[in-house]
C-alpha cells in the first residue's frame, strides 16, 4: 500500500457537500413531512457519492458494498417513514409538521 498524494478535491466532493448541505437545509426548513423525508434521502445519497468516489480512487471495493447496504437501509427508512407519515395524516388530517406537536405539553 503506497500512500498516493492524489489530487484530493474533485468535482464530486463539491457535489456531495452541496447535496448534503441542501438535504440538511431542506430538512430544517420545509414544512411538508414528505419533502423532509426526501431531503433525508438526499443526505444519504451524498454519503453514497463520497463512498463511491473514494473507493474507486483508492481501489478498495469495500466502499461499494457499503453503498449497496446503504441503499437497502434507505429503502427501509423510506418505507417506514412514509408509513408513519400516513398514520399521522390519518390522525391529524394534515402533513404539515407544525401540527405534530403533542409532546410539547
Amino acid at each position, binding site marked *: 500500500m503506497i500512500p498516493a498524494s492524489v489530487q484530493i478535491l474533485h468535482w464530486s466532493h463539491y457535489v456531495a457537500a452541496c447535496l448534503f448541505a441542501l438535504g440538511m437545509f431542506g430538512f430544517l426548513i420545509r414544512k411538508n413531512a414528505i419533502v423532509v423525508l426526501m431531503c433525508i434521502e438526499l443526505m444519504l445519497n451524498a454519503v453514497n457519492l463520497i463512498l463511491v468516489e473514494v473507493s474507486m480512487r483508492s481501489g478498495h471495493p469495500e466502499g461499494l458494498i457499503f453503498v449497496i447496504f446503504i*441503499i*437497502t437501509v434507505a*429503502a*427501509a427508512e*423510506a*418505507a417506514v417513514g*412514509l*408509513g408513519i407519515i*400516513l398514520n399521522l395524516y390519518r390522525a391529524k388530517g394534515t402533513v404539515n409538521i407544525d401540527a405534530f406537536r403533542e409532546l410539547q405539553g
Partner: protein
Amino acid sequence: MEAFLPIGILFLFAVMLCAGIYVLTNLLGPRIFQKNKLSTYECGVQNPLFETNARLPFKFRFYLVAVIFLLFDVEGAFFLPWALVYRESLQLGANLLIAMLVFSVFIILGLIYVFQNNYLNVD
C-alpha cells in the same frame, strides 16, 4: 465508462424525437378552443360523484402495493449479484447455495405473511 457513450447519443436522438413530436403537434394542430373542450372529461356529470372522503381508503391499498413492491424489489435485486457468481462458486463448495436458501426462506416468510393477512387483495 466508454461503453456508455452510445447510450448518451441514443438518449439525444430520443429527446430529439420527443421534441419533434411536441413541436409538430403545436405547429400543425388547429386551435379551436371551446369551454366544454377545456374542462376535464367528467362523463357528462356536472359535480363528480365521488368527491367525498370515501376515496381515501380505496387509495390506501395502492400505497400498500408500493411498499411491498419496494421491499421485495430490494430482495429481488440481491439475487442478481448472487446469480452472477453462483456458478463459479460451486467449485469451492456449497456455501453460496446455503446462503441463498437462508435468504429465500426469509423472503418466503415475508410472502406468506403478506398473503396470510391478505394485504394485497387490491380490488
